[in-house]
């Protein structure tokens, strides 16, 4: 499926209330007319059943958000409702701001590196012929075939050798490498869906290949870039395994690692309240970003980047 048809079909998959007519109409019409009284009576069990399913999916999130501010013995929020658990979280070891800062740094650096590398790489794969092109493209995709652990153990040794042990930059470099198969593939098909006449016209007007990329093509592949950036951010923000292996210094830990460690406070007693608060802080940016950019998230699937 080429990308220029994607936005259209994306819209019918994404929740877009305003859009509910049009494309989907024929499928609805195939069943029964929605307005008749009998139709409503017939469909009520369906609503109850599917609504129940939706509740199962949302309940754990809502319960965690509520109980993170609810009173419970053994946490920092014993009496009444309040933000005691968030205060525990804020004062944990180096302080939550350090861990939040580390996570933001790793995530942003990963996003920037992934965008830069896949933009240039996608341009090269889509528009140029050069020896070794197919080998390089297959090697990039082959990253997906290799288990995380298989690469992280030698990477731990290699980063130590080059002085990037315990370094957030090292983590961002590794996370960028793990993002390359999806992002390179995505950017390649984004460029391929743009008519060649566009950059040829720019070059006739005197642009270099880089000028054509910068002035003409970047605006045209912007949707692809947003999708790549969103996936890179979600992956980097949430990653647990790479920092677990590559970071030993408690002041350099990222947020998921810090929250997982904070669970077990002194004497092996688990602070459930602070854990709930940590999960809320971890999940909230992802859920908000997902709701805002849902259409771009779905495009990642529609584009065929997950298809053979």
């Amino acid at each position, binding site marked *: 499926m080429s990308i220029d048809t994607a936005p259209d079909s994306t819209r019918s998959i994404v929740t877009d209330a305003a859009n509910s007519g049009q494309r989907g109409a024929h499928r609805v019409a195939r069943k029964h007319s929605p307005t008749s009284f009998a139709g409503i009576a017939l469909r009520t069990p369906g609503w109850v059943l599917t609504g129940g399913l939706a509740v199962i999916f949302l309940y754990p999130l809502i319960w965690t958000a509520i109980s993170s501010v609810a009173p419970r013995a053994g946490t920092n929020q014993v009496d009444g409702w309040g933000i005691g658990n968030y205060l525990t979280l804020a004062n944990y070891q180096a302080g939550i701001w350090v861990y939040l800062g580390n996570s933001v740094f790793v995530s942003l650096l990963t996003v920037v590196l992934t965008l*830069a590398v896949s933009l240039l790489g996608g341009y090269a794969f889509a528009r140029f012929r050069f020896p070794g092109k197919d080998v390089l493209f297959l090697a990039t995709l082959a990253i997906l075939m290799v288990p995380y652990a298989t690469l992280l153990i030698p990477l731990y040794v290699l980063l130590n050798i080059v002085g990037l042990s315990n370094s957030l930059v090292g983590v961002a470099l590794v996370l960028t490498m793990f993002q390359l198969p999806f992002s390179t593939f995505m950017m390649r098909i984004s460029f391929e869906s743009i008519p060649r006449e566009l950059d040829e016209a720019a070059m006739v007007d005197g642009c270099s290949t880089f000028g054509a990329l910068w002035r003409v093509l970047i605006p045209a592949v912007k949707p692809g870039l947003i999708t790549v950036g969103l996936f890179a951010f979600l992956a980097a923000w949430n990653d647990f395994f790479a920092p677990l292996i590559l970071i030993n210094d408690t002041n350099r830990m990222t947020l998921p690692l810090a929250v997982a460690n904070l669970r077990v406070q002194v004497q092996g007693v688990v602070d459930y309240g602070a854990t709930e608060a940590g999960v809320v802080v971890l999940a909230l940016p992802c859920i908000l970003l997902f709701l805002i950019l849902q259409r771009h998230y779905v495009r990642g699937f529609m584009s065929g980047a997950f298809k053979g």
Partner: protein
Amino acid sequence: MTATLHTTASPAAPPDGPQSRRLGRRGRRGRRTHGALAGWLYATPTTLFVLLLFVLPLVLVLQMSGSDWPLLSGNQGVNFPENYSDAISNRFFMDSVVFTLKYTVLTTIILLALSLGLALIVQESSRWKGLLRTSFLIPSALGLASASLLFYVIYSPIAGPFADLMTSWGFTFLGTPDGALWSTIFLIVWRYAGFYMLLMLVGLQGIPEDVYEAARIDGASRWQTFRDVTLPLLKPTLALTTVLCVTGSLLAFEQFYILTKGGPDNSTITVVQLIYSVAFQGPNDLGVAGALSVIVLLALVVINIAQIRAFGRKVED
């Protein structure tokens, strides 16, 4: 994970669109010589990342798997077959392989069946179905580690919403081997059902409407339509989702590391957890960990090729 599928398909994709063929011969040749250098230039960052952070570590892990390589003191010389025999004779090796396979089979069957069901439910577009889709998808935005921490609290016999129920009925979610396995599977299904539902939806959208129309005219029941029309036409999607789900489940780590820590009684140790603990917790033996990693890599390649072969043959039938 998907690379196995891409490798079969992507070389066939023409490097040039049909538009370029319309260019004059001279223009095209000029472009190619000009293009090779510039192409390499634009591909340099990708090349550097692939060589330094992917190919080089792969070579190094091969060397490690044949060397005596303690975590702190580095390479101590060749230790070739011993690392591999040590890896296989590790007292948790067989248990972790069996457990990982059991977990993979259960997760794949449950997750794919459920996500196909969800996709069929929300296939039509309406306001209500849109809301349902978003509800199913929201857990996919969470990281696996966040989701595991979330369920760590929910399954807790002290703080979870089922704490009272657990005391009065006398059970715990994570207390028994079977309980821990099924609790983890529930967490994974909750986290990934929306993701796989989306892949199924993309597959369902690719089935043309007139095929359903023909089935309806022939008087096929809903179940017949599903079995004889939807399922066969969905085969490429089912192949992709199976490969993704099997690969992801075979490499399971975070959910067990956070939720069960391999317990109770070391009953939920996965292969990747074994690699991690051999390398960083206790033995600190990167040589044996490297040998285990190479074994997992080879097993994964073999399993994925077998799956693609199996699905390919079924498509031809």
